[in-house]
């Protein structure tokens, strides 16, 4: 199993209600449905992804996350997931508020822009980092709000969000002791388990 999925599924209770914001083709929810028998709903806007969700038997609602979650009741889900989507949102801070209103806990994963590769790319080339993992140019990237592990930590402090767990993995979703020791420098993908204080 992919190490990031392994980590995430540890935090999901069996038979719980899970909302996945930007659920893609539904494979994460499908995995959780199979492994944990969760009662799932995914939100997605891409046509092909929506079709894949339907094909996978995943409940999917076409909804733009930039319009918020006002149509969801407070505390109506156990866990709200935001996997690799944070950086593409117009108002990531507001959506995090909303996800912690709708769910009793949240799981956020995002590409860590504080990673040494990004730093090296920017400082040596003087240009916005482009990699196999993040292949877009600055002008056509859907990722409009990059942040670092330290940035996210700061946001959690500011918003009085409780970090239940935090870890980092590389772009191959592998973790290591040295990554965990210097997460903001070595981690490529950050994984947070958060809740309201």
């Amino acid at each position, binding site marked *: 199993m992919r190490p990031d999925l392994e980590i995430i599924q540890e935090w999901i209770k069996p038979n719980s209600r899970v909302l996945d914001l930007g659920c893609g083709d539904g494979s994460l929810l499908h995995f959780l449905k199979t492994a944990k028998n969760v009662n799932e709903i995914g939100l997605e806007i891409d046509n092909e992804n929506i079709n894949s*969700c*339907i094909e996978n038997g995943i409940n999917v*609602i076409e909804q733009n996350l930039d319009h918020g979650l006002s*149509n969801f009741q407070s505390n109506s889900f156990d866990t709200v997931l935001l996997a690799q989507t944070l950086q593409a949102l117009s108002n990531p801070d507001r959506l995090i508020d909303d996800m912690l209103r709708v769910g009793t806990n949240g799981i956020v994963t995002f590409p860590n822009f504080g990673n040494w590769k990004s730093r090296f790319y920017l400082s040596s080339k003087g240009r916005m980092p482009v990699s196999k993992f993040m292949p877009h140019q600055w002008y056509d990237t859907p990722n409009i709000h990059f942040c670092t592990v330290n940035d996210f930590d700061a946001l959690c402090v500011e918003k009085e969000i409780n970090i239940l767990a935090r870890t980092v993995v590389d772009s191959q979703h592998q973790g290591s002791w040295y990554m965990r020791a210097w997460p903001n420098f070595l981690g490529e993908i950050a994984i947070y388990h958060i809740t309201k204080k």
Partner: protein
Amino acid sequence: MTNSIPTDSVGLVTPQTHHFDKPLTLRSGKILPSYDLVVETYGKLNADKSNAILICHALSGDHHAAGFHSVDDQKPGWWDACIGPGKAVDTNLFHVVSLNNLGGCAGSTGPASINPKTSKYYGPDFPVVTVRDWVNSQARLMDRLEIPKWAAVVGGSLGGMQALRWAISYPERLNHAICIAAAPKLSAQNIAFNEVARHSITSDPNFHRGHYLEEGTYPKQGLMLARMVGHITYLSDNAMRSKFGKSVAEIEEEGNNFGRDLRTGKLSFGFNADFQVESYLHYQGERFSENFDANTYLLMTKALDYFDPSVDYEGDLSKAFENCSCKFMLMSFSTDWRFPPERSRELVNDLLKARKQLSYVEIEADAGHDAFLLPIPRYIGAFSTYLKKVYSEITGHAS
């Protein structure tokens, strides 16, 4: 003449009539002592009777949803774009049941039928039926056909409302409700359009307070006008523009035969139809008025107006959904202004509030409300993917 029947058609079909003797108590309190329902079926019912799909028709639809009645038919059934072998509602996989609702005018008992009590046309004395009454009659049909549970109940517009009512009234008798281009209830604007349609019918001198059949006539002008108004609400501004959007300047320049004045090809400067959209509406209205019963039209629009399942739940639709056990699939179309995507999203939100299993897809389409009848690729894609999944659920393996 279709010459040959397309290979993706269900082919030639013959409607069947089922007679029901057990009186049906209607929502209004009135009782229909006996009635007929005319039905078409496509595709085979499997051994454990688990692959049946009910199709619910909209305002002017009937049981003839797919295929042809004769090789000379100009057009197939009203939802042939979606029902047939290999189509979204795949008749190779499913047994499809489609009926004409009570109060209709295509063979099921309605205002144009003979009242056995009086041996005269029911006419305006046919009781007002509601969506709930239709669903109750459909449940009796289901018993008659010995179908224990629908794999899915499917409908667009007023048909989608029947699918919702099924989910609420008979939660244990369907696995999926597929509700397309519908709404939780009508808006004041929707009702206003319906009232214009009704008023145009009832104010036609040939309406005779609904007893026009006794008088050997029918309110042609009123029915035409009703359909013309209705038709405007089915199309989007864009769809009309791209279909008929010739400007005065273009007509003058082309000098073609848009206007009635065929000799000059110029604008008539009278009150005949100069613009294509005018003759289109006239044609639609005229064709419809010759094939549809005016009292049925009044009745169907009333059924729409009265639809509001929240009525039994203090106006809270989410409470109406609480006992539902089926899964829901909702679809809407971007330019539909009769039942726009916002109305479907209201349904989505109430279903979420009731913690139901649902999917919702919003389809970019230019055609307005009519889009649900058309072979729009993304629509058909989502629709067939969903039903393939339904099929793999009932058979326990992928189709």
